[in-house]
């Protein structure tokens, strides 16, 4: 994958991200080990306790993440390569933010109506489509999912007030 065009600034370097992620791994490892110690990581009356196996999992994770951390702190060559550039981050957020809003909306409006709004918004915002293209796609896709899941396979998906109004 190529990164690095002249007209876009790096937001964060690869090296910084490596350090951050390795640090997060170390943190998770400590949490895993601490919880394993809480439930017991030794030998009980009936064999290995509940934390026996996860403790070593945490320990291996801690050692590996510290090694990755050390390698990146030591080496400065990754400093100049960008993990993500400004225009790339903007593109990623263009998907991530509406997706997150879609997920939150699902809790209140159900998945079908949220999907209609999400697809319509995305097509309008990113694709700049006219209403005559947006409407059929944004309505037919969730409608197809509704028929497939609720009617054919009898798998209920989260529904909101609108579906309740129609008696579902």
């Amino acid at each position: 994958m190529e990164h690095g065009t002249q007209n876009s600034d790096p937001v964060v370097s690869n090296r910084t991200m490596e350090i951050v992620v390795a640090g997060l791994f170390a943190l998770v490892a400590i949490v895993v080990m601490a919880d394993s110690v809480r439930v017991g990581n030794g030998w009980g009356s009936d064999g290995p306790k509940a934390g026996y196996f996860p403790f070593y999992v945490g320990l291996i994770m801690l050692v590996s993440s510290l090694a990755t951390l050390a390698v990146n702190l030591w080496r400065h060559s990754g400093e100049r390569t960008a993990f993500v550039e400004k225009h790339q981050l903007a593109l990623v957020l263009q998907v991530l933010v509406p997706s997150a809003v879609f997920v939150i909306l699902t809790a209140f409006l159900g998945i079908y109506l949220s999907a209609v709004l999400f697809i319509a918004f995305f097509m309008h915002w990113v694709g700049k489509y006219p209403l005559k293209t947006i409407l059929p796609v944004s309505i037919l896709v969730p409608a197809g999912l509704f028929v497939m899941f609720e009617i054919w396979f009898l798998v209920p998906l989260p529904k909101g007030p609108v579906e309740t109004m129609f008696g579902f």
Partner: protein
Amino acid sequence: MEALGSLIHGFGVLADPMNIAYMFIGITLGVLIGVLPGLGGANGVAILLPLTFSMSPTSAIIMLSCIYWGALFGGAITSVLFNIPGEPWSVATTFDGHPMAQKGHAGEALTAAFTSSFFGAFVAVLLITFLAPVIAGFALRFGPAEFFAVQLLTFCSFVGMGSESPFKVLCAMMLGFALAAVGLDSVTGELRMTFGSVELLRGFDFLIAVIGLFGIGEILLTMEEGLAFKGKSAKINAKVVWETWKSLPRYWVTAIRGSIVGCWMGITPGGATPASFMSYGLAKRFSKNRQNFGNGEVEGVVAPETAAHAAGTSALLPMLTLGIPGSPTAAVLLGGLLIWGLQPGPLLFVEQKEFVWGLIASMYLGNIAGLIVVLTTVPVFASILRIPFSIIAPVIVVICAVGAYTVHNAFLDIVMMLVFGVVGYVFKKLSYPLAPLVLALVLGDMAESSFRQAMLVSQGDLAIFWSNPLVGSIVTLALVMLFWPLISALLRKRQSRQDGGTQVIPVK
């Protein structure tokens, strides 16, 4: 010979017209999944898994495995026509497949790709037919120590054979194990890492992780690259297919070599992606037309495709015989087996004969059905790919959300899917491998329980892993794999020192 009899019985299971219908539906859905960016085989099977809960396990696994074959085929379409590998194992196919399409030989490239995929898969299915019962019979004698040893070998192979930093492989793998440990401990009944949350009692389902890591993560990466589809049109007709088929026997050595590489990499968890690259590299190394590789050489399409399909198919061998999946998609299929109440492993061949042989028979027919479907429907699938990304992306996110929700009917799973999506994006950019994470998440409980059982037998003495030649050699091999990066570095150092002493040529 017993295998042949069982196989014929398996074809009898398939004779049900509904199973044949599921096979074609599966293949078509699979090709669609393979063609759409962001919906890979593992992810597609994970999303569609809940739909099969109402079917009989045999019908369900036939449909799901056919989705898998379809996805393997679909990757080639995007690689050749659009220079976009729909799946990571199709990357090597783009090297020569797309130049062929640019020269107006898209039909030949696709026919060669599909036919070699079929060949690779066929060799792997033959291997499964005759080897699986033998391995399963052998594995029936395994105790907990032997099972843990095989699982250890699987995980250590990721460290030894991966191209990523061994520390990163270990980190990703251990994260999978840690996530698998969350929830109720099945042995002691104690709660682990739930931190008082009722939602976490359920633990982390690997299906959610797969959908997030491979689905949402892929969408974010695709979006970042500012994907624009500029495809070549493909004209596939009977004449093109026939002409290409006439020329293909010329590459029999490449095809057989690709199949062997693929089968080996599929059974060990090397996977389809390294297999395709290795096969391409070998083909280039030994070809008479070496200089033409990369400019549209048919051999450069045959090599990666045979290997990728052989690997993808043979990944099911360890899954069926030992309960250890050789690829993330095989892991999802294994999850399906567990959900249907079937315990993958050697006993499956004894207790669920009909199921196993129905599945193996479906591999034969599924690949033939796949070849027919892809050869006849390429223009349709190619036109789907011309739908702009700004329409496809939100639709895929919605489908992923639906898939995540249906696993446990839990809203939190949709949120987790999004979190795993971001994790997948960051991991891919920093070269943390996703496959060991997923496999650890799937096998975590199984590995832990065999380890604990073995420890219980030996009263905590690790010597049980060297208590007999079988377990001893597997564990030793696993440790060699684990420390292989270190061993190979030491060997290289020694070699270069020797070279430096005797030769004047500087070592790179």
